[in-house]
């Protein structure tokens, strides 16, 4: 954890709190991009957090970055701060300079992208589906092949044909079609595909976990507030036994995923990763279903109105759990890891990191 973390977090929260109103989030759903908030984030260096200054970032470590992303989830920021931070973190991993561009990174195993050369330029063709924030991005980072090698390519979604779709939260999730889009060679970087994708899924998975943890904490706050304020038959709701049972399970799920979040970020930071991200995304995704359901049941009819804040959080939870691998994806990966490792180790030893290198560090 960087020493600056407390200060960074506090100043980020101050900005988010002051500038993210329910109305601004509503406006996103109506198709407006909140330029003002975005500029503020850029001006405060929040979009390049976690990237070393030598690569154009403001510095800080992964802890800092994910804590800011968690807060962005809590305040349901109507701009793609999490996406841009993630894209910048990934660029910095391959030593590419970052800047203040509004960018995101997109990867889908079934992407049908194609890069061809055309004299000094390259041409990109193909279709990308479900690109979050697509229509508003200045730059999209994609992974593709050229001449049997793997590359990361920066491309502008504005040069594609955009079919506007949206996710469950009303955030843009567009289909982009690229037809002979020219790519400048300087926007192409060769990569080791396997390690890049693994890295991306790990950081992407934890990005989503961060956002979901932030939103879940805020949901718990809303539920505690409501059940304390609102009365039924003359007593505050939280005096009802059944409401208490709901609040307790809601708190349990929330504490579970947020505690786990701290452990997974620590493991990422220390590069001591085996199954941690899989585990984190699985338990967080699984908890989301109960958290959203319980919160709505507690809130009753008021909570399903568009006027209420609750759905801005629950709809995001339902959307975010689908990104960077759902439960099935990570379960598959985790199971493979469990099958792969040497059979002579018991499960207990495996989940207690009984490997020489770990015991000796």
């Amino acid at each position: 954890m960087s020493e600056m973390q407390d200060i960074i977090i506090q100043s980020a929260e101050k900005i988010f709190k002051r500038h993210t109103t329910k109305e601004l989030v509503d406006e996103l759903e109506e198709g407006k991009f909140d330029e003002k908030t975005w500029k503020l984030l850029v001006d405060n260096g929040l979009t390049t957090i976690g990237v070393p200054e030598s690569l154009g970032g403001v510095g800080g470590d992964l802890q800092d970055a994910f804590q800011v992303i968690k807060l962005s989830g809590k305040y349901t920021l109507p701009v793609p701060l999490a996406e841009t931070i993630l894209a910048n973190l990934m660029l910095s991993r391959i030593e590419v300079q970052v800047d203040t561009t509004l960018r995101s990174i997109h990867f889908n195993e079934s992407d049908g992208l194609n890069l061809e050369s055309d004299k000094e330029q390259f041409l990109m063709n193909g279709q990308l589906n479900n690109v979050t924030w697509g229509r508003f991005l200045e730059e999209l980072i994609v992974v593709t092949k050229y001449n049997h090698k793997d590359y990361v390519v920066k491309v502008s979604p504005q040069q594609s044909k955009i079919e506007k779709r949206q996710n469950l939260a009303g955030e843009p999730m567009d289909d982009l079609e690229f037809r002979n889009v020219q790519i400048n060679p300087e926007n192409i970087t060769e990569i080791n595909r396997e390690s890049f994708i693994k890295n991306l899924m790990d950081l992407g998975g934890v990005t989503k976990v961060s956002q979901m943890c932030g939103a879940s904490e805020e949901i718990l706050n809303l539920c505690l507030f409501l059940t304390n304020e609102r009365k039924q038959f003359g007593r505050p709701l939280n005096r009802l036994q059944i409401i208490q049972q709901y609040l307790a399970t809601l708190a349990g799920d929330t504490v579970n995923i947020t505690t786990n979040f701290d452990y997974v970020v620590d493991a990422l930071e220390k590069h001591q990763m085996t199954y941690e991200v899989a585990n984190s995304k699985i338990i967080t995704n699984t908890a989301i279903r109960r958290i959203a359901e319980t919160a709505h049941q507690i809130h009753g009819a008021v909570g399903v109105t568009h006027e209420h804040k609750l759905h801005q959080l629950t709809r995001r939870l339902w959307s975010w759990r689908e990104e960077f691998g759902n439960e099935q994806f990570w379960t598959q990966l985790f199971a493979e890891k469990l099958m792969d490792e040497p059979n002579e180790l018991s499960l207990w030893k495996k989940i207690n990191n009984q490997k020489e290198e770990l015991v000796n560090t």
Partner: protein
Amino acid sequence: MLASLKLPKATLSKEHNEFRLEVRSFLEEEIKKGSFHPSVDSWMGGYSIEFSRKLGEKGWIGMTLPKEYGGQERTSIERYVLIEELLAYGAPVAAHWFADRQTGPLLLKYGTESQKNRFLPKISKGECFFSIGLSEPNAGSDLASLKTRATKVEGGWLLNGSKIWSSGAHLSHYMLTLCRTEEQKENNKHAGLSQLIVDLSAEGVSIRPIKYLSGENHFNEVFFEDAFIPEDHLVGEEGNGWVQSMQELAFERSGPERILSTYPLIEEVYQDLLTNNDFEGMKKLVPIISELISLRQMSLSVAQLLEDGEDVNIAAAIVKDMGTRFEKNVAEEIRLIVNQKPSQFSSNQIARLISESILHSPGFTLRGGTTEILRGIIAKGMNK
């Protein structure tokens, strides 16, 4: 076991099955013609005046009503079969839903001859839509503490107050409104309530739509400011409104709409799994299909109990509790079977139906009696 928990096994006759096939071919024809696209929760969100008219022409609205009032004198089991088919195919039935399900039977039971002649034929033709005015702002689940007040004047009442969560009021002609016609009494909160038919286009009536979380518009708040309600718009007995309303609610708890709201998604996924020859996926779909089958058996049994004139209070609450939880589970289980990101306005039918199902889910276990209230009814009922 307690008698109230013993449900009869209902048998659908050959005639019932033939009727089912008749409805089904009509619906398949309509889909082919493009008159509607199957959608989930179509009894809440599927609004089509044209489609309602067509059903009216077929005699499939108010079909249990006597012929003299425009009905078909068919049994409630036949209506059950009809509703199942409409919902399974995701047909747009929201417009006439409450008039068909509640207002028609209510007017038949409590209405005056002139009310029956005036409203029932139009309801059956799909030309007269009703909304229900029960809940009020800030009243929570405590329905008995209603504040909306009808003051007696020459030839009728002046109505003041407001109703909330009225589905479809912005698209209906009338609202069946429960209101206070006498001062509230300390010792009996249920006394002094009456049911009035409110013309939603009348002076003094205004409607404020309440957007649902997905941005759609189903609910409304309806305000009354000295709205004049003519004397002959009183339904049933003055002061008997509470009893009449509660009967209305209990009767309609266990219908197919408490089980099938998300069925169109199941069907689509089933077809998808077949097409892809995905056996592992099919195994994951089996528990959903199993639950669906047994819930329909229970629901049909309750319909039979109703037809036999028995008390269905506990049984209906059980079906609604379990059925609505099932409706909610459907999308949550299916999202882990198919590889489709929920996406609104997607070109992929499954991605769209999952979206609709998840967004509509929170309402399933709230509308028409929350899970917690239903379970209270069940537990207390068993201990009588």
